[in-house]
């Protein structure tokens, strides 16, 4: 038979099954838009203008791969529902004498139509959205837009190719499934009202195990000392949450529902009678989808709310990371006057004044410290889990910085050791063979730095004056030490934000001409670079969250169509018995509500448990205002809950329409 015949049959089938195919097409169009936009962004030459171009490309490329994989996963999920629904139809084809190759042709044309239609619509929408998304990212990054206008075929080809592969994988899976099944099993009507799965003792154990998994994860997240390690565990944690949630929903929630069934006052109430009975059956059957919603919801809240708070808190981070308006470091102590002069000149040129200039002369290097004996050496001491650094500073600078009034005599020092190191009352310390008398000893908790992640153990030796510092420096040089004294200058200037940006630009230009200046940073620079970086995180967090939200919508929509089609005969029976439409609607509303809000409640519990870790991660980015972050998370939770309620209401309407139209 001619291929055009099968092509026509495939087209007719799609019209007949339009309820499911439209949903499939929407999924297709949406995933194509998402993937195309990611690819387009990654390949756009204008992106080179963005700060941190290299990192941005890596992040966007990873985003492309991520979207491709979740698309494959999600399309498998939606295909599973559709193919289950169409088994009987395929069985009928086989019974009418169609060969497998003919059925394959029908399936092929159906896939082709969806692919072509989805690609055209998805790419068209992508073309419309690309400029908005691109400019949106650059606006968020607060940097100049350099939109590379014009059409590029590369992202189109990549998108088409990726989706051909995904669709072919699904097509071959469907073909294989039909060949594997016997005609009679395909023809067999599905049991539309799934039997109530009774719970056994094993289910109770599984439920308890699920609770234990979740509780264990919560415990680990909140007690893990090593943040880096706990971040590395994130994928495992998601897996554990997923398994735990699945077990809790399929066993514990069903047990609660069964318990409610034994409460006569609750169960034998016209509002809850059908609701509880149906929930017992539906919860277990939907456990997998509900667990997926649970994980997606958790990821959306964590991903979006942290990136939103990170972006909105950029000013806070810059201020936290950088207390002064700027800092200049000169590797050559002799050039200190030049550096200082440059700061004052830049301020003058910008029309502002230097309010304060904290100067620091110091000698910093890596060392080893014997806590027991109070000995500093290069070698011969067992190293710790983190590197140890020491800075030798002047008492005058130290007193000025911390507003103290310490006094030292010749040969005396003020010792500040790391708060995480053991504290000993040293009378003297052995500093590379030099005995130094410890007049004061504190730990760094009294003089905290700004780093929120510990990279090294920090120690400070504060000496009486510049002579004492040079004396020590000379002695260190004598034993092979090569490092020179450095000069640090923290400045505070008057004027507005714009004035400070102006000073930043002038100073940056001047300092670049002084060879010994090897470090210059400012609040304005921090703000600029942090906005750029946070904007990328925000873009990714929100984009991927949006994809996840859409997947939640699709799952709910698919489940509602699937279940409503199964439930329609039951609703007809209820009507025949004398249930009002209003009662049926109320019952379905409560039932669906309880069903679809279980994963949301669990997701909120997960987020609450993860909050400590989320705030620790934010501290890495210098967002230390936890109250601000909490506010962002709570507001986002309320927002996403509202979105979910709207989604739920839409899905409920679809359900009602199907069951009541059927009757």
């Amino acid at each position, binding site marked *: 038979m001619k291929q055009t015949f099968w092509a026509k049959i495939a087209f007719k089938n799609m019209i007949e099954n339009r309820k499911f195919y439209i949903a499939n097409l929407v999924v297709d169009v949406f995933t194509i838009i998402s993937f195309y936009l990611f690819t387009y962004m990654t390949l756009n030459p204008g992106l080179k203008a963005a700060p941190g171009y290299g990192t941005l490309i890596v992040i966007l490329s990873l985003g492309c791969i991520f979207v491709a994989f979740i698309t494959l996963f999600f399309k498998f999920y939606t295909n599973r529902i559709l193919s289950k629904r169409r088994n009987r139809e395929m069985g009928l084809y086989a019974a009418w004498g169609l060969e497998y190759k003919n059925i394959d042709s029908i399936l092929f044309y159906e896939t082709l139509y969806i692919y072509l239609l989805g690609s055209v619509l998805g790419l068209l929408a992508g073309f419309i959205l690309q400029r908005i998304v691109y400019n949106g990212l650059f606006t968020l990054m607060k940097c100049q837009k350099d939109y590379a206008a014009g059409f590029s075929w590369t992202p189109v080809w990549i998108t088409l190719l990726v989706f051909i592969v995904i669709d072919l994988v699904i097509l071959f899976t469907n073909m294989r499934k039909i060949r594997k099944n016997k005609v009679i099993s395909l023809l067999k009507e599905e*049991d539309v*009202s*799934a*039997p*109530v799965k009774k719970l056994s003792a094993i289910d109770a154990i599984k439920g308890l195990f699920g609770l234990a998994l979740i509780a264990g994860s919560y415990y680990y997240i909140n007690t893990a000392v090593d943040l880096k390690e706990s971040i590395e565990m994130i994928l495992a944690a998601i897996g554990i949450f997923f398994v735990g949630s699945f077990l809790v929903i399929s066993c514990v929630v069903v047990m609660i529902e069964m318990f409610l069934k034994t409460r*006569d*006052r609750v169960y*034998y*109430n*016209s509002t809850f*009678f*059908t609701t509880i*009975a*149906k929930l*017992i*059956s539906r919860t277990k059957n939907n456990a997998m989808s509900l667990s997926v919603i649970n994980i997606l919801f958790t990821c959306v809240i964590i991903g979006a709310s942290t990136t939103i708070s990170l972006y909105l808190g950029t000013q806070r981070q810059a201020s936290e990371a950088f207390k002064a308006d700027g800092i200049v470091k000169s590797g050559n102590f002799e050039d200190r006057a030049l550096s200082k002069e440059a700061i004052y000149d830049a301020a003058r040129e910008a029309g502002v004044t230097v309010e304060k200039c904290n100067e620091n002369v110091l000698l910093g290097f890596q060392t080893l410290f014997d806590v027991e004996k109070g000995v500093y050496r290069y070698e011969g001491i067992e190293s710790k889990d983190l590197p140890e650094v020491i800075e030798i500073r002047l008492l005058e600078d130290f007193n000025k910085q911390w507003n103290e009034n310490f006094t030292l005599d010749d040969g005396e020092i003020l010792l500040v050791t790391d708060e995480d190191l053991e504290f000993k009352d040293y009378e003297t310390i052995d500093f590379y063979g030099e005995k130094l008398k410890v007049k004061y000893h504190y730990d760094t908790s009294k003089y905290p730095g700004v780093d929120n992640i510990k990279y090294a153990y920090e120690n400070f030796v504060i000496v009486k004056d510049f002579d004492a510092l040079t004396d020590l420096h000379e002695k260190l040089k004598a034993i092979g030490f090569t490092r020179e004294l450095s000069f640090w200058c923290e400045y505070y200037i008057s004027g507005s934000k714009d004035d400070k940006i102006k000073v930043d630009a002038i100073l940056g230009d001047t300092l670049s001409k002084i060879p010994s200046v090897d470090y210059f940073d400012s609040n304005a620079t921090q703000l600029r670079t942090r906005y750029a970086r946070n904007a990328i995180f925000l873009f990714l967090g929100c984009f991927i969250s949006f994809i996840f939200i859409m997947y939640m919508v699709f799952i709910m929509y698919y489940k509602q169509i699937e279940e409503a089609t199964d439930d329609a005969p*039951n609703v007809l*029976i*209820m*009507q*025949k*018995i*004398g*249930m*009002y*439409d*209003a*009662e049926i609607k109320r019952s379905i509303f409560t039932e669906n509500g309880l069903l679809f809000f279980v994963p949301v409640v669990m997701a909120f519990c997960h987020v609450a448990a993860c909050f400590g870790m989320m705030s620790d991660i934010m501290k890495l980015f210098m967002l230390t205002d936890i109250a601000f972050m909490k506010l962002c998370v709570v507001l986002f939770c309320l927002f996403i809950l509202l979105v979910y309620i709207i989604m739920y209401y839409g899905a409920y309407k679809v359900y009602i329409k199907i069951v009541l139209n059927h009757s």
Partner: protein
Amino acid sequence: MSEKMLELKNLRKTYMAKKGAVQYEALKGISFDAFEGDFIAIMGESGSGKTTTLNIIASLDTATEGNVIIGGTDISQMGNKEICRFRREKLGFVFQDFNLLNYFSVKDNIAFPMVLLNKSKKEIDERVSELAEKTSITKLLNKYPYEISGGEKQRTAVARALVCRPALLLADEPTGALDSKNSDQLMDLFKTFNDLGQTIIMVTHSIKSASKAKKVLFLKDGVIGATLEKENADDEEFENEIANFLYSIRK
């Protein structure tokens, strides 16, 4: 004399295809009365209008013309909510394909109409136990519909139909999905309830099932073609009478 339970006045039903192009007149003026304690069987070939008549009596469908008066109330004039209330309080329905809800146990299936009427748990338990005993399904109360046989399902459906003590029990081909043994058991059950005063109207193709009724209405092309009264005949004699009548009209 018994009270008039049901009155059908010149019932007409016309089905119209979309755009009003094709019309099909399923009922062309059906009128009959049923009194308290009646057991009426409606027979006729496929398409004669039996099920349409029953569905209109059950308020599952509406007539194009005519009136359905049950216990003095004209249900043709009722709104949707009133109809639902009326159905759950006054009518019991037994279907060919049982129409049990699979997510309810046998007990809950029977109790369902009482729960809708907000009856107390005590009342529900008492009534369900009484009916389960009468329909011999006491041991099945905690099972689910997919765990019991067709005959047991239909007895459950009968118990559910009677649980609210309906004025009228309507049955649409109740033995259609049952074997002969289960069919006999079910009809004996109907007869027992009828002897206790339950009014029953049943649509059936089965001569044997119809022979249990007190009166048989024969529908042909949307009108009542003939009526046979059982009077003093026993089941077997009445079965023969129905068979002979059907044979004669076919001839």
